[in-house]
C-alpha cells in the first residue's frame, strides 16, 4: 500500500542461531517507528538487513514497492546513524563530509542544520582520532541528516550525546517526521521512545511480538507511560 519500506518474510540465521524468523511488516512515511526488544531479539540484525549490511537468508526488502534486496541504489534514500561511529583516524571532519558528498554525488541542497547547531564547522580541520565519542556521534548524526533522505535509520541515537545535543537531535527528528520522512529508531531508553515514536515494534526472539501505534498500546492497557504499558502486555 502506502508503505515506504516493506519487509517480506525476512529470515536470517547466524550458524544455528535463528535471529530473524520471518519478519513481515511495512513502514509508512511520516511516522517514527521505535524498534524495541530485549538484547539479542534481532533489532540490529533487522536494521542491518534493511541497510544491506546483513544479507538475509530468505525473504525480500521492498522500497516503494520495488524489490531492492541485494542492490544498492535505494540506499541513497536512506540516512543511517550507527550506534558507534568510527572513522579513519587520519581523516578530518571536513574531508569526511566531502567524501560522503562525492559518494552520493550530491553537493548542493544539503541539510546542514545539525552541522551548525553542533558547531562542527569550527572543527572541520580536526582529525577523527582526536574527537571524543560524543563529538563523533554528532558527526554521525549530521551525516545521516545531511542528504535529506526519505528514510532515517538511527541506532541508539542519543547514547553518548550530552543532554543538550540529544535535545537538538530529538527536535530534528520531530521536524523531519513532520516533513513526511520515515524514521526508524532503536533504543533502550523507553522514555525517549515514548517521547518520539508513533508506532512501537517489539521484537522478541526473532519474531514481531507486536507492532502497534503507541496510543493504542496505552489505551489498551490503560497506562499513560510506555514502560508500564509494555510490562503489562508482556506479562499477559
Amino acid at each position, binding site marked *: 500500500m502506502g508503505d515506504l519500506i516493506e519487509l517480506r518474510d525476512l529470515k536470517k540465521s547466524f550458524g544455528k542461531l535463528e535471529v530473524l524468523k520471518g519478519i513481515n511488516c511495512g513502514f509508512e512515511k511520516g511516522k517514527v517507528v521505535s524498534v524495541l526488544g530485549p538484547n539479542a531479539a534481532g533489532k540490529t540484525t533487522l536494521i*542491518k538487513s534493511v541497510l544491506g549490511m546483513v544479507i538475509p537468508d530468505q525473504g525480500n526488502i521492498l522500497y516503494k514497492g520495488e524489490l531492492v534486496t541485494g542492490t544498492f541504489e535505494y540506499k541513497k534514500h536512506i540516512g543511517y546513524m550507527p550506534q558507534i561511529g568510527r572513522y*579513519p583516524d587520519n581523516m578530518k571532519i571536513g574531508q569526511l563530509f566531502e567524501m560522503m558528498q562525492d559518494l552520493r554525488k550530491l553537493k548542493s541542497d544539503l541539510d546542514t542544520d545539525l552541522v551548525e547547531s553542533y558547531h562542527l564547522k569550527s572543527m572541520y580541520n580536526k582529525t577523527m582520532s582526536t574527537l571524543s565519542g560524543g563529538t563523533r556521534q554528532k558527526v554521525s548524526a549530521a551525516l545521516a541528516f545531511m542528504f535529506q533522505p526519505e528514510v532515517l535509520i538511527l541506532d541508539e541515537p542519543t547514547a553518548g550525546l550530552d543532554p543538550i545535543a540529544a535535545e537538538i537531535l530529538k527536535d530534528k527528528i520531530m521536524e523531519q517526521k513532520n516533513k513526511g520522512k520515515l524514521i526508524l529508531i532503536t533504543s533502550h531508553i523507553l522514555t525517549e521512545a515514548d517521547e518520539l515514536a508513533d508506532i512501537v515494534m517489539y521484537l522478541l526472539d526473532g519474531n514481531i511480538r507486536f507492532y502497534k501505534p503507541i496510543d493504542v498500546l496505552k489505551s489498551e492497557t490503560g497506562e499513560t507511560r510506555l514502560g508500564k504499558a509494555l510490562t503489562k502486555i508482556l506479562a499477559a
Partner: protein
Amino acid sequence: MLDIIRSKVLIAYTALLALISLSIFMSDADVTKGLISITTIVMIIVPLVSIVYATTYYFNASEFTELLVSQPISRSDILWGKFIGIASSILGSYLIGICIPVALFAFSSTGLMLMLSGCLLSLSFVSLAFLASTKTRDKAKGIGMSLIIWFYCSIIFDAIVLLFLFSFSDYPLEKVMIALTAFNPIDLARILILLQLDISALMGYTGALYRDFFGSGSGIAFSLIFQIAWSVLPILLATRTFKKKDL
C-alpha cells in the same frame, strides 16, 4: 577512490627499505652482491609488512566500512577502493625505498627484475591480506591467518619442498620442481631475480635446469604470469566473499 592514508607506519616502512638498500650499496663495492643482499632481505620484509599492514588496516576501518556499505555504493567498489588505496601506498613505499636506490646504484636487468618482482610481490601479499581479512570475522583471527600465509610462503614451503625432494630423490623431479615454485609467490620472485645473475651455477643441477627454464623468455613470462595471478586471484575471491558477507 576513497582513501587518505598518511600513516606513520608507511613512512617508517619506506624509510626502512631505503635505509636497507642505501646502506648495502654504500658498504659494498660490488653492486651484484649488494643486489643479492637486498633480494634476500626484501623477500622477507616486503611480504610481511604488506600482509600485516593491509590486514590491520582492513580491520581498523571495519566500522567505517559498515557505514560505507549503508551508502549508495556497491560492495565491490568499496573493497576495490580499499585495495587500490592500500596497494598504491605500499607500492609507493617500495618504489621510493627500493626502486629509486636500485635505479641509481645498480641499474641492470637484475635491478629491473628486482623492482618488478618486488612490486608484484607487494601486490600479491596485499591481495592475500584482503582474502584473509574477508574470510575471517575478527581482527585476531585475520592477522593470525595473514601471518600463517606469510609463514607458509617464506619458511614452511621451503621445508615442504626439501622434504619432498628428499623423499622422492630417486625420481626425476626437475619439472615437478618448476611447477612447485608456482605455488609460492616469494619463490617465484626470488628465482626470477637470482637467475638474472650468473650465480645459478652454484645451485647445482636444479639450478641449471631452472636457468634453462626461467632464464628463457617463456620462463620469465611463466613466472610473471603466476605472480600476476597471485596478485589478482586472491582479491577477486575476496570480492566474491565480501559481497556475501554479513557486517
